[in-house]
């Protein structure tokens, strides 16, 4: 492409960081030195070169990790290497919250102030940091405040997926050996220590999981906390790769038959039948196909995938390999959210180990088919959990969802047929293949078959990850987590995540099936069960949800871009008694905005941005009269 580069030059450090990801430049037409005779007379490019754009986000991440931000010179060098117009690369760089095109210090502390952490002291933590270290840094394309590179700075963050250990924070240190830690139970003291340059603490321990190890009810969690996630041998010794062997025996269509029979529904939130997806991709004529594992878990209150990725990474690799075998895809991508350093590290190592052992590659485990996996990391964008936005992100573009159809099974990653499944969904594939779809479907009912992982957080006594059949009631599940503290009463449960709805104490008898949730006007979403008690400032939580959607809207379509802003404004007016017209007028306005977002938005973000707000008003009775 005829790219017009800028004049700014990258520093040696920036160049080296980018070259580490992209390899040394091979031609003067891709950032290398001039000199060879051949280069003055020929250059290759075109289609092959345009595909290299998939390395844009990894290259931008490399700059961010090396110097703490993305300078114009660094961006320019990446553009030169990848043949991407600087304006487009700028559009990508400014899309992600963890990337900064304004100078930032080497250490950044991202403090979660989302609903889960608010229940556990995040507001006090932020206030304390404000008083000792000033206002948080705000994510902007152009920073007017020049920060001292050596002095750590802090900013607030949406949900970091560590709700069971709230309040949480992510610390990132840029440098020659960049490092980052997701940490929980952050105290004012520990936060101030990090701001003063204290050494990075250990990664947060994995979440508490229930039931206890060895309990036969643990299916998806069987290995968690029991089997060494770094050891392929340990994985094998605990039954790993027996599902793949069985899959090869069953043959591709046999595998898909079992998945269809299992009635497995997607665990990412949309509950689409997995077997149907696989069938559709397998039915596409031969050619390039992809398997994508959606590990961009970012729904506030969700942390199940982080546990699976960190504690049982080989299981996800095996399941993706089976998906590739069954559908004829030879290449897979795991897209892990940027806020999960430990999960990314463990999955990357597991992929390397599997490749080394021949479990990935040209001839998988000697079974005579090819499959390999590439790990990609997000960089702080909730919207990239939307499957088509995720494809755009992998392809090196802004993570803006596409209009559907065409659906991913026909035109997904790089425009090719693609199986895209959530982490937990893939984890279910192993027991299905091993024991048969019928056995799987015997647990649960209807389309709600198998067990599910529930992320309990908020005002419960034992937050953590709970595995339970979907026929379990919400009441029973909350009881397992110890319920609310003595002397408190349960006020509401945010079921499914910020994109879902609040349910009331009266609805707790509901079994956690797709069918029951739907008939109650609720949704199971990504398995979030966030409990609120009578001490919680519910309107504040709803305002945080509204702010979340406003902030995370990609801005591509008007209903969502404008609607999420207007929604948040109306809620502020209601809560501060500054309504325009009556309270009923504001409610009507919100309902109209909600309908416009639901009907007119391109993707699920806008379509569900009003769901929690609506239930807060109609079922919890919030925002009814305002307060001082």
């Amino acid at each position: 492409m005829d790219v017009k580069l800028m004049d700014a030059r990258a520093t040696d450090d920036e160049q080296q960081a980018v070259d580490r990801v992209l390899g040394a430049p091979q031609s003067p037409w891709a950032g290398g030195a001039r000199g060879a005779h051949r280069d003055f007379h020929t250059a290759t490019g075109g289609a092959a070169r345009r595909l290299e754009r998939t390395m844009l986000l990894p290259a931008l991440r490399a700059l961010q990790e090396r110097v703490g931000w993305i300078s114009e010179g660094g961006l320019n060098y990446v553009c030169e290497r990848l043949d991407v117009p600087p304006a487009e690369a700028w559009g990508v760089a400014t899309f992600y919250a963890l990337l900064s095109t304004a100078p930032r210090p080497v250490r950044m502390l991202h403090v979660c102030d989302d609903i889960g952490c608010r229940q556990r002291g995040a507001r006090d933590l932020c206030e304390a940091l404000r008083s000792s270290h000033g206002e948080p840094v705000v994510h902007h394309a152009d920073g007017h405040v020049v920060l001292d590179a050596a002095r750590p700075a802090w900013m607030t963050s949406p949900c970091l997926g560590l709700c069971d250990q709230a309040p949480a924070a992510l610390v990132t240190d840029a440098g020659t050996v960049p490092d980052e830690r997701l940490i929980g139970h952050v105290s004012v003291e520990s936060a101030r220590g990090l701001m003063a340059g204290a050494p990075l603490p250990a990664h947060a321990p994995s979440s508490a999981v229930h039931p206890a190890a060895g309990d036969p009810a643990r299916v998806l969690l069987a290995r968690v906390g029991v089997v060494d996630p770094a050891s392929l041998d340990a994985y094998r010794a605990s039954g790993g790769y027996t599902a793949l062997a069985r899959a090869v025996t069953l043959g591709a269509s046999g595998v898909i038959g079992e998945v269809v029979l299992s009635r497995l529904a997607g665990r990412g939130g949309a509950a689409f039948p997995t077997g149907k997806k696989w069938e559709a991709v397998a039915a596409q004529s031969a050619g390039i196909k992809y398997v994508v594992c959606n590990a961009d878990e970012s729904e506030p209150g969700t942390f199940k995938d982080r546990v699976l990725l960190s504690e049982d990474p080989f299981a996800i690799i095996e399941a993706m390999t089976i998906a590739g075998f069954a559908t004829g895809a030879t290449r897979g991508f795991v897209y892990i959210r940027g806020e999960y350093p430990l999960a990314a590290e463990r999955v990357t190592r597991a992929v390397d180990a599997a490749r080394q052992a021949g479990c990935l590659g040209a001839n998988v485990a000697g079974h005579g088919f090819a499959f390999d996996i590439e790990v990609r990391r997000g960089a702080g964008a909730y919207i990239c959990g939307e499957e088509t936005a995720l494809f755009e992100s992998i392809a090196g573009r802004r993570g803006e969802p596409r209009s559907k159809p065409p659906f991913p099974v026909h035109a997904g990653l790089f425009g090719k047929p693609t199986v895209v499944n959530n982490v937990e969904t893939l984890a279910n594939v192993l027991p299905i293949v091993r024991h048969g779809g019928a056995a799987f479907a015997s647990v649960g009912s209807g389309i709600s078959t198998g067990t599910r992982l529930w992320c309990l957080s908020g005002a419960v006594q034992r937050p953590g990850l709970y595995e339970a059949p979907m026929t379990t009631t919400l009441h029973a599940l909350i009881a397992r987590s110890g319920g609310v503290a003595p002397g408190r009463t349960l006020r509401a449960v945010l079921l499914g995540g910020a994109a879902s709805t609040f349910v009331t104490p009266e609805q707790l008898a509901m079994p956690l099936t797709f069918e029951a949730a739907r008939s109650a006007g609720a949704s199971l979403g990504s398995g979030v069960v966030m409990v609120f008690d009578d001490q919680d400032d519910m309107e504040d939580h709803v305002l945080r949800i509204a702010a979340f959607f406003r902030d995370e809207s990609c801005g591509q379509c008007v209903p969502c871009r404008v609607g999420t802003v207007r929604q948040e404004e109306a809620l502020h007016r209601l809560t501060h008694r500054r309504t325009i017209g009556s309270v009923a007028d504001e409610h009507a306005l919100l309902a109209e905005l909600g309908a416009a977002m639901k009907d007119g938005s391109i993707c699920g973000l806008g379509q569900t941005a009003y769901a929690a707000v609506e239930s807060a008003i109609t079922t919890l009775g919030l925002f009814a009269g305002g307060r001082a």
Partner: protein
Amino acid sequence: MFGAGGGTSSYEEVEDADVVFLWGSNAREAHPIWFHHLLKGIRHHGTRLYVMDPRRTASAQWADQWVGLRVGSDIALANAMAREIIHAGLANQAFIANATEQFEQYAGAVESYTLEWAEPVTGIPADVIREAAHAFATAERAMICWTLGITEHHNAVENVLALINLTLLCGHVGRWGAGCNPLRGQNNVQGGGDMGAIPNKLPGFQDIEIDFQARARFEQAWGRPIQPKAGWNLTQMFHAMERGALSALYVIGENPAQSDADAHRIGALLEGLEHLVVQEIFLTKTAQYAHVVLPAAATWCEGDGTVTNSERRVQRVRHAVEPPAGARDELAILTEMARRLGHDWGTPTAESVWNEFRVLAPHFAGGMSYARLEALGGIQWPCPDESHPGTTFLHARLWDTPRGGRAAPFSIVHHDPPWEARDPQYPFLLTTGRRLESYNTGVQSSGYASPLHRGETLDISPEDALQLGLSDGDLVRVTSRRGTVDVPCRIDTALRASLVFMTLHFPDDVATNLLTIDVADPRSGTAEFKACAVRVEPIGVGAVAGR
């Protein structure tokens, strides 16, 4: 080609081509609308693009393969590809047998063009030539498109024939998505030819010397004998001025004082004319030499008529605004001129002239009434009658069995380097071209502000700039055997050592054509603007921007 005076294909077809050779063309800048069609092919169809150009231009940057040949080595490259195709058994034997003639002679003529010979001559590594040749030959649909990099040479016609040979060799003509296409530089270059503004053709590409039936038709219609003798092309006219055989000139919408090679010589010749009439929409440099200037309306918006684009599509243009006071419709000027010379043509309209053309060139345009042109949004010639939809691509007849019409001949052409070579006195080769935001001599494009206008520069490789101690913007003196200009330099990585580049967009500031050489192709009359030897000397530091 093969008897038709236009490109073979429609714009839309390039969107379906599997391989496109863009040869001697920077269409990304010079033909941006057509290039959008190509981009559709690249993005949606997967068209593979090869760009043959000495510079790594904006177009070349879109290519799957840039083939940066030496200036003027086009025939060497084309013939080497042909030999490779023949030896690899990739020639389309069935098509050659059915549709062509003189293949044996052609095959014999290219036999000496081995890859090993071609590599040092063209500068292109043998493996790249081979790969391109195979890609072209094995493509289902392949197209060659070219512009002035092919035709602004002293052997322009031979260059074109070398490319046509390749399409014949592989049967890439007469089918959808295949063909050979000169991209026209103006909205109506094609239309000028259609209407007979070619020295040896009557309107509708009817040969004035050979086609006596056509000549008789025109004689009957116009009531005048028509001499069976081709006129002069522009280059020949200047030669005639030089020897005193031409003393009066009527120029309509052309600016030879600035657009033609060796501007010193052209200026002197124009000055020496006994009578020069210039009919123009602006007071151009040429008009300033004129004894009489006839201010004309701009027909694309101030008058009625038709234009023909590069895909042979005849389209209506309409009178939308009034011309400025004093400017007259061009048809009215010509009619008035005729009346003063004793011929009363009445008061023809654009449509009545067009309808006369339809009658006199019936096979060409008989079916193109104004009503149909309007209803169909333009029609591609030939369109012989009112039931004919127009012709998307030409020469489908070559695929008929038995073949329709006469065979398409291979042409024997040989490598013939540019007239001027680099030597110790003039160690650089200057090649010229266009930029996106400007247009030819700037008559239409210099009058408005554009952030892209940066004035004229001498574009030079980083290697040469280093050698000469030049930084961007430094003033240099460029000298050829014919003239000298001073111009700021601009370092451009698209160039290699000893190759420099200029445009002709700002002739009032930097008269590039003082440098260029007036050796022209004897058949097309086009001068070798693409190659002349120059010397480059630093003369000062600091920006001396053109405008």
